[in-house]
C-alpha cells in the first residue's frame, strides 16, 4: 500500500482495534505497575468505538472527516488521560490533513507531528517527561526525514516504527513527571512508560497494516 485513503483508514482502525483488544491485559498490567491499571480498558474501548464510528460513516465521508469523527468519539468514550490525549491527537491530525484524501509519507509526517504537538499542548508535558510524547516526537522526526528523502510510505513507517521502539526503550531511563506515575518518582526509572508503549503500538500497527 503506497498511501492510506478513506477506505484503508477504516481498515487501519480495525487493525488498531484488534491490536488493542489483544494487548488489553498487557496494558492493564503495565499501567498497574505505576498507575491505575485502566489503560488496557480505555484503549480497547476507545478504539472499538472509533472503528465502529468510522465503519458506520463509511469511506464516503472522506479521510479527514473520519479522523475527526474518530477523535470525537474517542474523547467521549474514554476520557482518561491517554484517551483524551489520543483523541486530541486524532482531532489535530485531522486538521493538519485538511483537504487531503490520502496519507503518503509527507502526510504521515504532518499527521504525527500535529498529533504530537496536540498532545504536548493539552498535557503540558515536555520531552523527557516520560510520556507518549517521547515516542511520538521522534516518530514525527523520522517521518519528516523520510519524507524529505522521498521514501515510500511503507519503508518510512517501518523506520518510524523502529525508532518508536528505540524511543520507548529510552523512556526507561526517564523519571515520570506527569499523571499517576509521577508520585512513584525514582521507582519509575527502569520501567518503560505505559503511554509511550501505546505510542509504539499505534505506529507499529500502522506500519504493519501498510506493509500488508
Amino acid at each position: 500500500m503506497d498511501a492510506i485513503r478513506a477506505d484503508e483508514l477504516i481498515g487501519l482502525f480495525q487493525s488498531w482495534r484488534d491490536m488493542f483488544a489483544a494487548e488489553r491485559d498487557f496494558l492493564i498490567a503495565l499501567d498497574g505497575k505505576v498507575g491505575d491499571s485502566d489503560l488496557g480498558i480505555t484503549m480497547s474501548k476507545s478504539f472499538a468505538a472509533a472503528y465502529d464510528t468510522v465503519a458506520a460513516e463509511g469511506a464516503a465521508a472522506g479521510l479527514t472527516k473520519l479522523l475527526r469523527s474518530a477523535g470525537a468519539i474517542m474523547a467521549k468514550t474514554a476520557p482518561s488521560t491517554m484517551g483524551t490525549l489520543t483523541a486530541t491527537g486524532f482531532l489535530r491530525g485531522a486538521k493538519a490533513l485538511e483537504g487531503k484524501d490520502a496519507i503518503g509519507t509527507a502526510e504521515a509526517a504532518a499527521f504525527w507531528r500535529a498529533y504530537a504537538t496536540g498532545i504536548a499542548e493539552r498535557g503540558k508535558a515536555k520531552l523527557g517527561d516520560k510520556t507518549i510524547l517521547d515516542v511520538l516526537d521522534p516518530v514525527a522526526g523520522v517521518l519528516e526525514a523520510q519524507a524529505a528523502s522521498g521514501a515510500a510510505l511503507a519503508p518510512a513507517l517501518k523506520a518510524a516504527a523502529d525508532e518508536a521502539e528505540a524511543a520507548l526503550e529510552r523512556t526507561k531511563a526517564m523519571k515520570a513527571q506527569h499523571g499517576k506515575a509521577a508520585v512513584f518518582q525514582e521507582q519509575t526509572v527502569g520501567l518503560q512508560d505505559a503511554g509511550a508503549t501505546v505510542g509504539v503500538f499505534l505506529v507499529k500497527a500502522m506500519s504493519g497494516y501498510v506493509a500488508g
Partner: protein
Amino acid sequence: MKKFLNDPANFVDEMLEGIYRAHPQVTYVNDDKRCLVVAKPKAGKVGIATGGGSGHLPLFLGYVGDNMLDGCAVGGVFQSPSADQMHEVTKYIDQGAGVLYIYGNYTGDIINFDMAAELADIDGITVKQVVGNDDIASSVVGEEHKRRGVAGIFFVYKAAGAAAANGLSLDEVTRLADKARANVRTIGVALSSCVVPEIGHATFSVGEDEMEIGMGIHGEPGISRKKLAPADAVVDEMMERVFAELPAGAGDEFAVLVNGLGGTPKEELYILFRRVSQLFEAKGSKVKYVWIGEFATAMEMAGASISVLKLDAELDPLIAVSVNTPFFAHYKA
C-alpha cells in the same frame, strides 16, 4: 471479585439509574445519565460543578443538592468523565452568573475540565476553576501543586456551596472556595486494596499485617508501608504531619472530617476520632465541626483519612450552613 453487579460494563450506569430512581432531587441532561444536575437550579446563583471518576461514593455526585453543588460529570470507575459531559453540565447549571469547577488534581480530570472550560468559553459562559490538592502525602511542602485531591474537597464544596447560596459573585465564590482549599490538609492510611469491576481483582495488595500511610484513593502509593500499629499511634503519626502544615495553637478552631475509605466500620472511625480530638485538646485548640463516616471512598478499600480545615471568620459561617443532598444532610443545630 465479590460484588453485587450485573455486567461490569454497566456498573456505573446501573448505579446511576438507581440514584435517579431513589432521588428525584437530581436528574440528568443531554440524555446522558452521566451528566447529573439538580432538578431545580436556583435562578441567578453561581453554578458549581464537579466531576471525577466513579467508585468514590458519596464523592462526587453525592454533594449535588441544596446549598452545595449544582452538577456533576460522572466518569467510569476511577476514570475522568469527558470534556463533553462537563460541558453539557456547565450549560445547564449556568444561570448567567457563571460556573465554578471544583475537582481533584488528577491529570485526566484537569485535561478534560480544561477542554470543557474552553468549550464553555465559546458559549460565552465564564468558568473558574479550583483544583483540590489536600493530600499531604502526595508531595512535599513547596510542591503543593503536585498534590492529589482527596476527601478534603468536601470542605471546599461546603464553603463554595454556602457562598453561592448566599448570592455571592463568581469571583467571591471562587475566592472563598480557594481559601478553603488552601486551608485544608488530608492524610490517609489504607489497610487493603479494592477491586475495579471491569478489572475484577485487587489492583494492588497490602500485606496481612501492614498499613500504608498516604495511599491514594485509587491505590496510588503512599509515603510509608509498615506494620499496622495501634490506632492511637497511627493517628499520632498522621496528625504530626497535619500539624506541621496547619499549626494548631491555643484558641484556634478547626473542622475535622474522619473519612472511611469503604471497608472500615464506623466503630473504628470513632476510635480514630477519639485520638484526633485528644490531640487538638492537648494543644488547646477546638474542633468546632466534625463529620465522621464515608465521604470519599475507594470502593471496598479498608482504611481511613483525616481532613482538617483551619477555620477563620470567613470560613466558619460557611461551614456552618445547613446542607441537604441525597447523600449528605447537615442540619444546623
